């Protein structure tokens, strides 16, 4: 087997977590790769709903954005923004939402707005987009983080753009889902089963120790009783990913 890149590893690991899921709200990049691979392996009935309003896409080329013209031509449905965010997402039709973030905390709350103070930030980040809504309205949320460092896995967010259900409930607002259930990184997989729980380390990538993951995490990371080692991508998974899903290596950097 050739060397497995970081993108390939994260895509394969994320794809396996989609067993039996039916609807995924996903952006372009790793979530798309993971979902397409899952469709060919563990979740044949899975459907991606894109933030642009596309349902049942059949693109002729791998899309470069969530709104790529190739996603629209030949799609089964293209929805308006009110229908997508109101009826599909808030209406409760999404099983798994994929999100990324600059910072995540132990309960899976996310910051995508600023590093530093909101009023005079060190770095102004893009902000929520639909992230607040994906978290509030998906049954569960997967987070894929390319970097696992104490600055991104932080004890205290600089700003909470996208709250998980624990923060929402503390304010008396009842969310639909249970928030972040999986955080997938190059070091391992953190998981969380429901409201009130913290993220726990449940698996490490091959060659990574529990201590390394804890050291890369900015809070005192809980560890599951049994920490599995993530099985490396199989030859078949890599073949599908490289030959069928992204043959032009648009995302598989």
């Amino acid at each position, binding site marked *: 087997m050739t060397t497995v890149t970081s993108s390939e590893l994260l895509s394969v690991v994320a794809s396996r977590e989609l067993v039996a899921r039916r609807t995924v709200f996903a952006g372009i990049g790793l979530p798309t790769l993971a979902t397409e691979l899952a469709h060919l392996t563990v979740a044949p009935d899975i459907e991606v709903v894109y933030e642009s309003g596309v349902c049942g896409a059949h693109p002729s080329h791998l899309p470069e954005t969530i709104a790529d013209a*190739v996603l629209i031509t030949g799609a089964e449905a293209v929805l308006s923004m009110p229908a997508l965010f109101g009826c599909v997402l808030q209406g409760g039709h999404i099983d798994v939402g994929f999100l990324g973030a600059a910072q995540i905390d132990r309960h899976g709350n996310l910051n995508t707005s600023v590093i530093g103070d909101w009023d005079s930030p060190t770095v102004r980040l893009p902000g929520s987009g639909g992230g607040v809504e994906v978290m509030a309205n998906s049954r569960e949320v997967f987070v894929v983080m390319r970097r696992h460092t104490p600055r991104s896995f932080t004890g205290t967010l600089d700003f909470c753009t996208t709250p998980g259900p624990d923060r929402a409930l503390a304010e008396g607002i009842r969310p639909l889902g249970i928030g972040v259930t999986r955080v997938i990184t190059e070091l391992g997989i953190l998981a969380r089963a429901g409201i009130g729980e913290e993220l726990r380390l449940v698996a490490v990538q091959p060659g990574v120790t529990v201590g390394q993951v804890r050291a890369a995490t900015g809070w005192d990371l809980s560890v599951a009783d049994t920490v599995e080692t993530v099985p490396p991508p199989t030859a078949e998974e890599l073949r599908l990913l490289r030959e069928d899903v992204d043959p032009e290596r648009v995302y598989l950097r």
Partner: protein
Amino acid sequence: MATTDRADKTLSMREAIASFVHDGDTVCLEGFTHLIPTAAGHEIIRQGRRDLTVVRMTADIVVDQMIAAGCVSRLVSSFVGNSSAGSLGELRRRVETGDPMPLAFEEYSHYGMICRYLAGSQRLPFYPLRSYGGSDLPSVNSDLRKVTSPYPGPDGEPEQIYVVPPVNPDVTIIHAQRADRRGNTQIWGLTGIQAEAVYAADKAIVVVEEIVDDEVIRSDPNRTLVPAHAVDAVVACPRGAHPSFAQGYYDRDNAFYRAWSQISKDPQRLQEWLDEWVRGTADHAEYVDRLGDEFWAGLAVGEALSEPVNYGRRL
């Protein structure tokens, strides 16, 4: 990237009603004058459902028939009339005299009903609307309530507005021109409130004039008003909207609308009509056959095709 092969959801009308409409359910039938799901209502009558709450903006002939057949104990509606062609005899008897039994009725305005579907489809606890101020409707419908806006009104004072609660039917049934086997549904002409009614429901049945190849649907994704993920059953039932119409397929049977005011005025005549045309037919295909080719020729429409648009293809 690969095609997603989600399930084939096609069922016969009999199967769909048997599977998704149960005694005591709240059943929404939508279609504003256009594409009224009459054939589905008739199958509910054939299967003898009882104690239904029917939700429908314009309670018209099919609702009068379902009431007369004893299926309906409660009606939620904003217009209870036979279009502009007259009255609904059975409905009026039930409300005016309670004969043969009373009908519970929740009265709204059209936009009140629309907002209930909007709230239901968007999972909102309420939906605000600028209606009902000074109306007697809130005095007979305690679900019409008020909220104070947290923003100052135009005069700087707190502003009050009426709200309606969501409606979330157990099942919504709509009629449409065409769908693929998985339920991607395309409607043109008057589109009414069908998409929101589907999204508001726990289960949804889409009855169509024709089931078409995936490629037809996918040639025009903007025409898909109801995506497959919101649909539980697809039923092919040509002419299933009669006596209403299906734009581009057949015209409205205005003569039957006028006739219904007379038929429904006489309870016995109404029951005989149901015996002959609904309880006396095995399914909608038999109803269509009995009406005969000459009849349908009278409702035939000619061709007025839309100009195609280009969705583009990457070169």
